[in-house]
């Protein structure tokens, strides 16, 4: 979590338990996060990267074991 999302999460990184049967999707990710953070994530200005690569559409997230998901709020400007 970057920027103020880290404050909402009260942590810079969170380890998530993975469901065994299938990859983690966007709804699954939100369900696994603290609710204050999960609510903020649908803001269209928030981008998501997986293993350092930006997702064109975060709703199509598919993450597996060991993947790093970065939640990126709008950058701060000047």
């Amino acid at each position: 979590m970057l920027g103020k999302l880290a404050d909402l999460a009260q942590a810079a990184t969170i380890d998530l338990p993975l469901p065994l049967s299938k990859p983690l999707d966007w709804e699954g990710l939100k369900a696994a996060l603290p609710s204050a953070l999960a609510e903020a994530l649908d803001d269209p200005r928030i981008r998501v990267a997986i293993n350092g690569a930006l997702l064109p559409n975060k709703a199509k997230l598919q993450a597996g074991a060991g993947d790093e998901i970065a939640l990126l709020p709008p950058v701060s400007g000047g």
Partner: protein
Amino acid sequence: MRDIRLLDQMFLPGLLIGPFTQANKGLGGVCTFVGEVRYDEGVEALELTHYEPLTLPGMHALADRAFERFTLMGLLMVHRVGQMRPGEPIVCVSAAALHRRDAIDAVDFCMDHLKSAAWFWKREKRATQNGESEWHWIEPREQDHSDLARWES
């Protein structure tokens, strides 16, 4: 000469610009912008967070676009991350070219993009009424978006 860096320690722009200018023999002009942490009322420190896998590659991609868009001999782009005090340099962009318009416009272009389209998050440590201090995230400003829109043609 291309020199793109993220630094987590205080730097002296003069020590970068001299060698950069020397490295671009035959230049007609060099334009440099240095941004410093302002002494805003009550601000004790500024912290810049970056996201390693995106921030430096993003600066390199910005440099690529500047070299495509302007006729440049060299580009220096150095950005601080971490905690800084008022008066410390945050960013230094320097462009060397045969003609002044390319050098000035390239610096303007890179600064607008670094300020509003690069992967940095800023927060300020501000004094509170009770004598303590608190961190506050800085939100994007409208001015930054309008600055950026100037280049979309």
